[in-house]
């Protein structure tokens, strides 16, 4: 065909030559204006040709660039941690169902296909999906999971009725690491796609796809005539190659110039690439829908988006429905225009029958089916920008940005997707209510970090009051004075001196003036502007007395405090200024988390991690980020400080927590900086560590203390975390005693003002308090309850 065309054009040219000569001859007879004669036609022709060639070369460069990008850009996929299911796992049925929804598992009356489930009260009938992990591939299984209260009570295989000891669900896809464009792709190769898909596309969109040279001149001519007749643009006549070009440049402009460019680019693409390569790019590029600000491009993503299934699992009904959307995802919108979509799908089925792509039986069977598109659909991308930001930063230590955007790496992170969503929702709600309360004009900002205390894996991270906003990540970058959050470091440094200090030791809470290096006088005050005289260490700590803490810190000395701070995971040395003892040091929430993780893990510091493993595009292992622990502080000493931090949440500045989380023990410390510019709370349960910061970006007072601000959000998050109660491990070297918090002398659990605290054996007071103030009935009941909820193992 092409050869014939060339011959024809040669013939034409050979005919033209004598005519031209004849014209030249006749020019003598018919004079033309002089200026016209003077135009050097050959040169003009040459110049136009050169310009045209340059332009074509330019288009070639542009279109090849876009094609290569689409071909090679396989953005890294980021997954949440997979949910491990086993008997006695702490998880309630509702949270489990939320996880299934995040995984796009669909409700089914009788689950048969993978990725479907049925819930009956506390029981779930599920057909899981198969998934490739680093260690073992999980197969699809039909299981029944029962819940009892806040834990999994039984998992059994539906087929043989046998108990299943352990099972891992596929992980929630959190998002991807993309180049600048805000789009998602779920790229597939042609061999991953159902065989029928290219056949349907060719039959419906471009019958001569495998024969033409990028464009179909006859189709263009037909469209041209139809458009002229209609007086407007009614037909496109675009080949698959042309549609692909159109998608690269994402413009809906309908002009001749654009059409001209599109035609040239399509021919160029066809010249450079194989038909199959073009088909693959088309399958991955074509625009098939919209999820808020995210465009749904490609059949891979569309298949997940509309049917919650990988593309290779789609049937004819589903494939033809997706193909129907090509003509206009909003025109054929499944909810807005269901009839249009159905009739377009039926038209496609007819075409397939006409073209003999499908049998009459299959045609009839499929045509009778309804279109079952999932209702609550979403593209799981870009939803947790703060967490993804942390993941990217930790990845960049080993992988350049380019590699992350292009090599299709699979990143398995540590995120608990349900907790992450809860943390985000809690932040949004709490900030709105605090803003209203304090009339802060939406200026109040927030950051929150939740990690697993043993493994230091980040489970949730919030960097903005609007968690979808991907700007300044306060959890990582807002470096603010930490205020009283430093106090456990000072008190731990003191308690490590077993002979000198215990919780019963007395410290003076009295005004103190210190000359600073720049010759100023620094006079710290207490929050209530009162000095309390001689107080026990435990009172000074639980009530967060500044003057007592400064005096204690000065006695211990900066080198010792700095040493403890560094061992806990402090990023840099503390400068030796007195104000450091009250938390003048700036730290980001994630840096504070590291300090408190070491406390929560009994002195075993683990680097805060957001990634478990990285696999390559084929699922082969590339890099692991293993659990690391380092014993940096003696566990017995940590148990001393922890028992004090528990009291902070029972009777001290964080006592609001005993009401907010009445059924569990937690430990923690509030922090408030000058003029309420920063509101902090850092604390831990038996399984989680959490740090919350509230403040404004321009460092304005918020009227929020650590207790009225950050603590409230911390409690909101921990209420959802299904967290374990804190227990203090006993050892041969430490013991627990009931102490009168005022005098530091031995007391009884039934006495008012007594606290259960940890002492190194031989350091607890031996003398008992003379009077035991009788507690009221209510306190007695509380004490009895307390007896049941012993903190100590």
């Amino acid at each position, binding site marked *: 065909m092409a050869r014939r065309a060339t011959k024809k054009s040669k013939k034409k040219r050979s005919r033209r030559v004598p005519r031209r000569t004849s014209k030249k001859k006749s020019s003598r007879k018919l004079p033309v204006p002089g200026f016209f004669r003077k135009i050097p036609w050959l040169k003009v022709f040459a110049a136009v040709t050169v310009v045209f060639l340059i332009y074509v070369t330019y288009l070639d460069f542009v279109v090849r660039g876009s094609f290569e990008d689409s071909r090679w850009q396989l953005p890294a996929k980021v997954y949440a941690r997979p949910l*491990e299911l*086993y*008997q*006695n*796992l702490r998880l309630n049925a509702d949270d489990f169902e939320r996880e299934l929804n995040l995984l796009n598992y669909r409700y089914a009356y009788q689950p048969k296909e993978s990725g479907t489930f049925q819930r009956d009260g506390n029981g779930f009938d599920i057909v899981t999906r198969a998934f490739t*992990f*680093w*260690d*073992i591939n999980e197969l699809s299984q039909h299981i029944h999971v029962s819940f009892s209260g806040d834990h999994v009570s039984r998992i059994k295989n539906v087929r043989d009725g046998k*108990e299943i*000891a*352990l099972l891992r669900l596929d992980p929630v896809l959190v998002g991807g690491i993309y180049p600048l464009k805000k789009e998602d792709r779920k790229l597939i190769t042609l061999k991953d796609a159902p065989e029928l898909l290219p056949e349907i596309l060719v039959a419906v969109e471009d019958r001569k796809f495998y024969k033409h040279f990028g464009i179909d001149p006859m189709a263009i001519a037909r469209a041209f005539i139809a458009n002229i007749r209609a007086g407007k643009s009614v037909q496109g006549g675009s080949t698959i190659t042309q549609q692909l070009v159109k998608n690269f440049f994402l413009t809906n402009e309908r002009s001749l110039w654009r059409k001209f460019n599109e035609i040239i680019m399509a021919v160029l693409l066809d010249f450079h690439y194989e038909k199959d390569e073009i088909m693959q790019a088309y399958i991955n590029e074509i625009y098939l829908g919209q999820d808020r600000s995210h465009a749904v491009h490609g059949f891979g993503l569309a298949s997940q988006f509309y049917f919650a299934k990988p593309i290779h699992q789609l049937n004819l009904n589903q494939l033809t429905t997706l193909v129907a959307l090509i003509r206009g995802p909003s025109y054929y919108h499944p909810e807005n225009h269901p009839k249009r979509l159905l009739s377009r799908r039926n038209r496609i089925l007819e075409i397939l029958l006409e073209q003999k792509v499908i049998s009459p039986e299959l045609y009839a069977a499929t045509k009778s089916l309804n279109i079952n598109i999932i209702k609550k659909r979403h593209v799981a991308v870009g939803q947790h920008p703060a967490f993804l930001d942390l993941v990217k930063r930790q990845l960049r230590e080993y992988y350049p940005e380019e590699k992350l955007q292009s090599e299709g790496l699979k990143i398995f992170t540590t995120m608990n997707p349900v907790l992450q969503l809860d943390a985000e929702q809690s932040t949004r709600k709490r900030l709105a209510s605090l803003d209203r309360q304090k009339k802060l004009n939406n200026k109040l900002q927030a950051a929150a970090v939740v990690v697993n205390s*043993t*493994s230091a894996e980040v489970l949730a991270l919030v960097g903005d009051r609007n968690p979808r906003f991907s700007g300044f990540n306060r959890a990582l970058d807002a470096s603010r004075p930490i205020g009283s959050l430093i106090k456990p470091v000072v008190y731990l440094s003191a308690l490590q001196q077993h002979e000198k200090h215990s919780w019963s030791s007395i410290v003076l809470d009295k005004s103190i003036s210190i000359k600073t290096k720049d010759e100023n006088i620094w006079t710290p005050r207490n929050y209530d502007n009162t000095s309390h005289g001689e107080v026990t260490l435990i009172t000074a700590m639980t009530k967060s007395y500044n003057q007592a803490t400064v005096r204690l810190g000065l006695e211990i000395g900066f080198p010792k405090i700095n040493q403890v701070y560094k061992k806990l995971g402090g990023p840099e040395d503390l400068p030796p200024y007195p104000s450091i003892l009250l938390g003048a040091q700036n730290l980001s929430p994630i840096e504070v988390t590291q300090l408190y993780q070491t406390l929560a893990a*009994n002195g*075993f510091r683990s680097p805060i991690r957001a990634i*478990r*493993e990285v696999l390559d595009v084929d699922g082969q*292992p590339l890099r*692991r980020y*293993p*659990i*690391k*622990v*380092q*014993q940096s502080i003696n*566990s017995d000493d940590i148990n001393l400080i922890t028992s004090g931090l528990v009291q902070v949440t029972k009777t001290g500045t964080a006592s609001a927590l005993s009401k907010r989380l009445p059924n569990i023990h937690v430990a923690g410390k509030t922090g408030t900086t000058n003029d309420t510019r920063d509101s902090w709370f850092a604390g831990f349960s038996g*399984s989680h560590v959490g740090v919350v910061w509230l403040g404004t970006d321009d460092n304005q007072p918020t009227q929020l203390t650590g207790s009225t601000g950050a603590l409230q959000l911390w409690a909101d998050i921990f209420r959802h975390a299904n967290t374990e109660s804190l227990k203090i*491990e006993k050892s041969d070297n430490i013991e627990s005693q009931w102490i009168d918090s005022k005098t530091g002398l031995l007391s009884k659990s039934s006495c008012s003002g007594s606290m259960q605290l940890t002492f190194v054996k031989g350091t607890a007071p031996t003398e008992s308090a003379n009077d035991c103030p009788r507690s009221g009935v209510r306190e007695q009941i509380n004490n009895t309850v307390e007896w049941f909820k012993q903190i100590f193992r």
Partner: protein
Amino acid sequence: MKQLLYILVLFIFAGCATTQRAGVELPGEDPSKTVLPEKNTSPAVISLIEKARVATQQGDYQRAEVLLERTVHIEPKNATLWHYLAKLRLHQSRYQDAVGLAQKSSYLAGSNNKLIADNWRIIAHSKQQMGDQAGAVQAQDKARQFSGQR
């Protein structure tokens, strides 16, 4: 069934025992000294330990690592699991990590002196490999001390 698994676990990591170095007794070379999973270990964890054993025998330490890390996610307070992880690190020549994990195991071990002794052996061996001869000898003494306290 559980008993059978215990027997299998007896030989966990036995396949990767290294040669004894002068002065430092190696953990787990003598199967009678190999620590069994605690009796209340869940079937979920037992199933992972068994897979980790197979992976170790095949020399696939990285896979064993993933499997054992999954066990500590499930039972973070189970001292024996941290011990297995420490032992694996030892065989991966990641001595610093082995020390930390062995210490963690000992912290959680309570009165399980046999386990604590074996953890000290891991520490002794790691210290020696890291060139800390004095530390190795000290740890070895600790191992003997706890071995004697059965």
